[in-house]
């Protein structure tokens, strides 16, 4: 085994994307194979096997949505819940919300049904004191009943266990003795944080996923080993770090946004290398537009995410904002005569009208096809031979053109304008709404369709430029190869700042760092460096929402902190969030958040660059009529054949197997030394060039 090959694998709903990197030679290979739904391990192994000899691969890093899909389709297994007397319905009562503001429809089915939720007499109070100790025999009886009822995994959640896990630990010991498999977890291990619904939901969803993700990973591992693979299999977490298979089997909930998170990690790495550390990513998929913000090269993390109504997961995740406006989103004219795009989607089946599979509702993709922006003769992905332009035109004419009194072309333009406006709204949401000036930011579109909309989005939002990675369609697979190993931990402290003993905080920080460091060590990997980050959730006393206050410490997380330092850090974080601070109001520390990061060797992105002998002329593919404000002759180019330094002025279309890049009139794209495209207004580019001269 040469031990230098690393393969990233992102299994999506339609395609499995692969990215191979040879650390010794810098060689790169990419591939896209159809996903084998329900038999993901089969397609996975076949795809990897086609890229390289399995015995030559030192690590396979996997982004998976198997867990998320199982949750959304309610295809998890039967899990049981043992909880505090009086509280078995917490999971089903949620936070007393409803699905939508207007209209009172929509019920809710919890991840663990009511007959598999049992209570035991036990109680801890908010201050951590135990009012009623748990009776091990009662726990044993409850667990037996759940087993008899067919539960395959067990979650134990007691009230206030974040303040004192003693009762949960007793219950865990009893349950472990008798439970036939390892799928038993307590909430204080999964999420030692105040708020019982969020903790119960996260622990319950984890239990439901354990057998699903566990058996999936076991199947993948078995197949790979049988094929001669002898390296490390690693899994990407929603926080953008990787973990070992053993950790993933214990904490499958951390894979909830695995694939999309890997895409953002890749974006951050590419952007830093290219010299643009402030980036907003825009992933145009079939049904959605996923956006995330990277400031200073660091992706924003969210503490919590809702997978679907009532399915709440509270674990640090790369913050990805999703709106229902993707290539397959359906355009329609509502009763008020307003053009609406999405959230309904044509999905993969029947898909957009141009797929010719029976779809007769016009989609964003249909508009791109009708306007000549997508090459109907060479669809990306390779599953279809050609696209049906006439079917797309008919659908647009019937559903948008006639109701609005517009020609087919004008209607298609209107669809794109409204779709772009919705996407722009999502970009503003993560930038302007969070206090970031879009002029400082670079848009990084990925997915097959992202680069079709980039030029328009630059103008709509006022972003500086777009950076289009060399392989936009396999960005998540690239991210798998790049991601560091990362583990997070939260601990509720809930003390006034004036009562916080810096030495006690230091002890908590060291404890968290050593627990997480041990996880890192157990994975048995070599790291370039190890980093420890600590953050406090703080607020004024009386507020229930907190601001995240990063603590400025040495890279290994060590260093002294005074209450004054913490207070100053809080005021600075608060002011940037709300534009004011409250004089004399006392301050409280709710949670300590710790992350330990094992940095993996960086891949050299220069290996993605076009060959040195590439010539501009060889990339020419003639012209094609494409509609912008008017119909124009756009230059058509083979994107991957463009040499470093090449400048292509709009209007132009750059084609490659996994994506299409559109350059609007007045904009231009330059190939940077990594093979990325830097897309900007021609006027801006000229100005930059002249000042540098």
């Amino acid at each position, binding site marked *: 085994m040469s031990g230098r090959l690393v393969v990233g694998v992102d299994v999506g709903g339609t395609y499995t994307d692969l990215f191979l990197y040879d650390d010794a030679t810098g060689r790169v290979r990419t591939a896209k194979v159809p996903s084998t739904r329900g038999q993901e391990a089969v397609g996975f192994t076949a795809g990897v096997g086609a890229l390289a000899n399995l015995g030559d691969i030192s690590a396979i890093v996997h982004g998976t949505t198997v867990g998320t899909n199982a949750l959304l389709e309610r295809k998890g297994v039967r899990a049981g819940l043992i909880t505090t007397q009086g509280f078995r319905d917490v999971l089903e009562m949620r936070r007393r919300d409803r699905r939508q503001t207007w209209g*009172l429809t929509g*019920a809710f089915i919890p991840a663990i049904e009511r007959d598999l939720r049992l209570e035991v007499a036990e109680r801890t109070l908010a201050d951590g004191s135990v009012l009623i100790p748990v009776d091990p025999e009662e726990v044993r009886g409850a667990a037996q009943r759940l087993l008899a009822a067919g539960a395959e995994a067990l979650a134990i959640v007691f009230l206030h266990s974040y303040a004192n896990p003693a009762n949960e630990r007793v219950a865990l010991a009893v349950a472990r003795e008798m439970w036939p498999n390892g799928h038993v977890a307590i909430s204080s291990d999964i999420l030692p944080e105040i708020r019982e619904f969020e903790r119960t939901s996260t622990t319950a969803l984890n239990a439901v996923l354990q057998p699903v993700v566990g058996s999936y990973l076991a199947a993948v591992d078995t197949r790979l080993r049988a094929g001669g693979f002898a390296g490390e299999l690693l899994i990407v977490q929603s926080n953008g770090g990787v973990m070992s298979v053993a950790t993933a089997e214990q904490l499958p909930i951390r894979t909830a946004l695995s694939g999309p998170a890997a895409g953002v990690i890749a974006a951050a790495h590419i952007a830093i290398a290219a010299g643009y550390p402030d980036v907003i990513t825009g992933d145009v998929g079939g049904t959605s537009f996923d956006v995330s913000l990277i400031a200073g090269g660091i992706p924003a993390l969210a503490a919590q995410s809702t997978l679907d109504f009532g399915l709440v997961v509270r674990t640090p995740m790369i913050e990805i904002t999703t709106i229902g406006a993707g290539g397959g989103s359906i355009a329609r004219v509502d009763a008020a005569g307003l053009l609406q795009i999405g959230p309904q989607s044509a999905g993969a089946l029947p898909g957009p009208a141009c797929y010719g599979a029976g779809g007769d509702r016009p989609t964003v993709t249909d508009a791109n096809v009708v306007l000549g922006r997508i090459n109907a003769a060479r669809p990306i992905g390779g599953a279809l031979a050609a696209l049906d332009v006439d079917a797309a035109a008919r659908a647009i004419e019937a559903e948008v053109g006639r109701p609005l009194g517009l020609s087919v072309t004008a209607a298609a333009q*209107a669809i794109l304008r409204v779709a772009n406006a919705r996407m722009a709204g999502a970009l503003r949401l993560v930038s302007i709404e969070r206090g970031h000036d879009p002029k400082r930011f670079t848009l990084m579109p990925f997915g097959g369709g992202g680069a079709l909309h980039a030029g328009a989005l630059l103008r709509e939002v006022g972003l500086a430029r777009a950076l289009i990675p060399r392989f936009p369609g396999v960005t998540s697979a690239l991210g798998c190869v790049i991601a560091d190993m990362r583990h997070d931990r939260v601990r509720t402290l*809930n003390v006034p700042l004036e009562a916080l003993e810096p030495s006690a905080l230091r002890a908590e920080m060291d404890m968290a760092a050593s627990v997480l460091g041990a996880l890192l060590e157990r994975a048995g990997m070599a790291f370039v460096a190890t980093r420890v980050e600590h953050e406090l959730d703080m607020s004024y006393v009386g507020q229930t929402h907190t601001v995240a206050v990063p603590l400025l410490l040495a890279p290994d997380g060590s260093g002294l902190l005074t209450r004054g330092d913490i207070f100053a850090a809080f005021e600075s974080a608060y002011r940037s969030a709300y534009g004011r601070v409250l004089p004399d109001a006392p301050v409280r520390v709710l949670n300590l958040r710790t992350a330990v990061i094992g940095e993996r060797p960086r891949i050299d992105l220069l290996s993605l660059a076009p060959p040195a002998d590439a010539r501009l002329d060889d990339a020419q593919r003639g012209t094609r009529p494409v509609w912008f404000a008017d119909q124009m002759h756009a230059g058509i180019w083979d994107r991957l054949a463009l040499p470093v330094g090449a400048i292509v002025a709009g209007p132009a279309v750059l084609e490659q197997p996994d994506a299409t890049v559109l350059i609007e009139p007045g904009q231009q794209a330059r190939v940077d030394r990594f093979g990325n495209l830097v897309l900007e207004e021609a006027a801006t580019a000229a100005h930059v060039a002249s000042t540098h001269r």
Partner: protein
Amino acid sequence: MDPVTLAVLKGRLEQIADEMDATLFRAAFNPTIAEAHDACHGIYDAATGATLVQGKYGLPIFVGVMAFATHAVIDKFPDAADGDIFIFNDPYVGGTHLSDLRLIRPVFRDGRVFCWLGSVGHWHDVGGAVPGNYNPAATEYFQEGVLIPPVRLYARGTLNRDVQDILLAASRLPDVAFGDLQAHLSALDLGVARMAAVLDDYGDNTVAEAFAELRARAAMQMRAEIAALPDGTWVQEDFLDNDGRTDTPLRIAVKVRKQDGRLTLDFSGSAPACEGPVNISRATTVASVYVALKHLFPEVAANSGVLDPVDVIVPADSLLDAHPPRPVGGYTETILRIIDVLFCAFAGMRPDRAYGNAYGTINALSIAGHRADGRRWVLFQFFGGGHGGNPEGDGLSHGNPPIATAIIPPVEVMEAAYPVRYTQWALRDGSGGAGRHRGGLGAIYEIELLNSAAEAFVFAERARFAPRGVLGGADGAMNVVRFEQDDGWHVPPLGSKIVGVRLRHGQRIRIESPGGGGWGDPQARDPQARDRDRRLGYAR
């Protein structure tokens, strides 16, 4: 105006209101705003105060009343200047009740008011006889809290500290009030900055045109919905248990008439204004009509155009047309009943849109006492219940009321903040009305006092009249409120209203909230669904 620019601007403007909502929720001090989202933001017409744009997350009932609130400021302050911020809680001109503080701020362009921004939120305490301001026994607003008429809090960007001092002095929890005030100001600052950016990007004329067009289109959409209703008249009535003073039911009657493409909602026959605090102002009545219509026709855009093709007749001096000093603290109960009768009336007109009644009471609970160190504590919470069965399926169990998008604070947060222990937090078996699609389940909440002593109040309804089923569906279970004393459990004499009961250490309050009404004939229920109900204990 070209529909594409309009669609783009609509999204941009709604985002401003959404962002103001998010800022207030995150920065507020009291959990009723921060956790329960009892607040709202919007953009209002320069001349009339009519609602132009509304956020997605704000409390639905405020959507309707803020137009009246803005109008009140326009009326009183023709000399409004750039940098002014007005504040008030007068329910008779601005709707709802004294707990809801409204801040209104003009957006100036070229020396003239271009539009108004509003920020409203439910404050924790504004004085009055009862901590938390839900006083079931009030007979005049003076007992419900301190009334602030529209006044200038900021004049040309400078704080009028005297006004702020009066506001804070009125509250039992001045620190919380100050924190909430700062949060409102952050939201308004942000709204003004965002609005200026939109105006600079698109030009004032284009934005003004968009405002007019959005309203016209909502009206057009509403007309289309009304046109699809059959002509005719539908009559419904329901009752409030009592007014908190005298145990006599109070009628809420409505006659819905569809004729010549217009809808007339005539509330004649409703009870006269009452002594206790379930009166509402005319503004609040109109606002609750708006909320009901928006639930029935959710696709119609959220602005004042919704009401253009609708006439609302409110009988003078009824409990739906309160004047000072009639108490209005329990306004939520009355507007929920208005929505209930409207849902029942529409079930006859549009069976495909029929909802069984939701649980119909917010069960406002306050418990107040002093800690060992003498500091005052006020727990205030309102509770969930079942939604009605509907054409799509069973009603949601433990939902929030149709007038709010409020979420409930976690038990662990409440127990960490107040000296109480929740001994039960569960779905209430069998509380949903039977039906082809049954009502959602209400819930059981039982709370024990850990302090040596405290005083408890509950403001609730539906202890005498159940949430109703529609199209043959059965009614949901009624509200049951009980409290413990030295001699055992008691049911309050006024059904579910408790006025100042003293609790001692270890004594409990128990609320069993109503389920939703059923939809359609229970005999037609899918046998599998019926088996599941029995297996999981949802139905007995």
